[in-house]
């Protein structure tokens, strides 16, 4: 999304936090931003956004609407909450509690 974005920057960024459950993707063509921008009616590509999906969420033709999401974008104040890590954690835990072990 920024002029300085690049494959090498994404690789370097991915090294900051690693976990077996985590996968990083480099989206040079901004396909994801456009797809999520559309389903969230943002009128612009979505980025700097955090989507939480429950266990039932299913991606058919296009990405599903998230159960909950936060952002760090200007112009989205009426659509979702500005990123707050504690708030995000609470929502993730709520959804996790619905999953049978």
């Amino acid at each position, binding site marked *: 999304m*920024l002029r300085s974005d690049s494959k090498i920057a994404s690789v370097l960024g991915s090294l900051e936090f690693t976990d077996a459950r985590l996968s990083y993707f480099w989206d040079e063509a901004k396909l994801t931003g456009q797809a999520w921008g559309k389903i969230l009616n943002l009128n612009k590509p979505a980025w700097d956004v955090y989507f939480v999906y429950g266990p039932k969420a299913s991606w058919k033709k296009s990405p599903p609407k998230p159960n909950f999401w936060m952002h760090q974008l200007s112009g989205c104040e009426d659509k979702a909450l500005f990123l707050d890590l504690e708030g995000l954690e609470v929502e993730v835990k709520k959804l996790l509690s619905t999953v049978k072990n």
Partner: protein
Amino acid sequence: MAEQVDARDLKSLPDFQGAGSIPASGSLILNILMKLLSYNLMVLLTLICVAPLNNILADSKTQTSAKISAERFLKFLETGDTLNLQAVFSDSFLEAFPIQNLAEERENALQDWGDLKRIENLKFTSENEALAQISIGEKELELYFEFDENGKINDLELVEQSKEDLKPKVTWEELGKDTLLVFKIDELEQLRNAFQKDKGKVRLVSLLSPT
């Protein structure tokens, strides 16, 4: 003194085979034709040899420039010296990743991972690709270079393992490996597969700028 033999006398030589039907004047013409033919063949062969030689020289010149570019970049990694660094990158690379950002990334990497311990084995893996092994802190990394036709660096990739594992068409099982770092999305289907594979679980998706 060696005996001189006129071409017209060839017919009379007892050990000359196959010339029986060629008149003396024809033999002369044949001689001249053969000389012309061999000259033309020589020119043709020279041309054939020169053409690939030009290609080889061009390739070698590009690779020499590429080697200089890569070595200059490795020197930057080692010392942080950005003097003349701009000249080793292609315009498209610099547009996407200005020198200032590169210097910041280097600083961040050294700060996060530790000192640069070792750079070695700059090796060309194809005409326009090379790799070098570097060791930063506890990390053993491979730095992949891709060069343009002028031998300037067009792309860089820093990975912890063989590039073979970073091919974009991967299965979900491969995606699950924690050793894999970044996958390039060529189509949303790849991400969809990853998303669907974890159906039944809580999933967090974030779209971020790496810089």
